[in-house]
């Protein structure tokens, strides 16, 4: 009966992995156990037989065959680049009807989609106003809300001033009457408001400065 730990020491000794201390332990054990000694001798003999097997020389042509078989045109570091490049080149130079059809269909679809979605936008930016005709004006203050209505009763000038607003448009409606001509001044903060136009209800009676 051979103890497993000594079998392990035998193998380590054959491999030259044993410390001097363990070597001495093993030798002592082998001296006291003939079966272990026989087993160790067999292992040692097997190892020696393996090491004595002569090496074979490959045929002289092996190296030539290897060097001829390797594709040195494909340098390993550039292989990835050449693969991509060759695929790209094949795509453009090799005729492939299926790819051609797909390409044409793609172009047509792209053109249609572009014209549908961008057509309005393009047209909207290209209105030729020189061909427009008719009268364009604000609707008669229907949508305007009155912010303030101030009655005017100054000397012989009577009427009212309404301030109306619709979104960002403010309309001052001056409805004033007087037997004599008078000046009406409208002061506003130019940083806050921008004068757009003045529309007299009776143009012959009004002069705008």
């Amino acid at each position, binding site marked *: 009966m051979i103890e497993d730990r000594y*079998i392990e020491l035998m*193998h380590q000794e054959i491999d030259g992995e044993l410390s001097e201390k363990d070597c001495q332990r093993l030798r002592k054990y082998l001296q006291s156990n003939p079966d272990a000694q026989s087993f160790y001798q*067999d292992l040692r003999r097997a190892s020696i037989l393996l090491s004595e097997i*002569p090496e074979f020389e490959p045929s002289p042509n092996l190296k030539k065959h290897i060097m001829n*078989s390797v594709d*040195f045109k494909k340098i*390993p*570091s550039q*292989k990835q680049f050449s693969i991509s490049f060759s695929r790209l080149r094949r795509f453009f130079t090799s005729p492939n009807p299926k790819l051609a059809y797909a390409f044409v269909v793609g172009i047509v679809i792209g053109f249609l989609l572009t014209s549908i979605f961008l057509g309005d936008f393009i047209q909207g930016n290209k209105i030729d106003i020189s061909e427009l005709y008719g009268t364009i004006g604000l609707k008669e203050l229907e949508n305007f809300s009155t912010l303030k209505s101030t009655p005017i009763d100054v000397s012989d000038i009577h009427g009212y001033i309404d301030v109306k607003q619709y979104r960002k448009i403010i309309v001052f409606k001056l409805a004033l009457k007087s037997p004599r001509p008078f000046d009406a001044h409208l002061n506003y903060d130019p940083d806050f408001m921008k004068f757009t136009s003045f529309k007299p209800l009776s143009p012959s009676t009004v002069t705008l400065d």
Partner: protein
Amino acid sequence: MMKNDDHFLVRQCLEGNQTAFEGLVDKYQKIIYNMVYRFCKDFDEAEDITQTVFIKAYEKLKTFNAKYKFFSWLYRIAVNESLNFLKKKKDGKNIDTIIQCSEQNPEQTYLQVELSENIQRSLMQLQPNYRIIIILRHFAHCSYNEISEILDIPVRKVKSRLYSARQILREILIQRGVITHD
């Protein structure tokens, strides 16, 4: 030093230096050839497999991690190719025998060859995973750590498998009469 030499040659190969690859072939073709032969026991196949090993090594050179030794990486390719060969092989082949010219007399040469053949046949009786570890240790002279790297198994598993392989081989050699007890 060897690691740096091999890594230098690998870097040269990656830059397209054909001579550098030739240097690697010169250095390792015999070891790989013998390793593969011990595994498959067929000279022609061993040459084919060796050729395949170097072709694949060149193609995969970019994937080689310089953290490891080049020969470990190369031996790993050889092990995989040898195992692939074994899977494809259906029936046993006749044992190849080679008589090497020597200055010994014919009888001594015959005995030597006979012994080598017996040992080789005994090796072939081992399971592939035991056979490969015997080959790496006793023919390629790899350390436990190197074998661990090549086979991608822990060192403790390398030891247990190697020790088991040796013990089985011992039994086979005794059965064949190669090892005798007086």
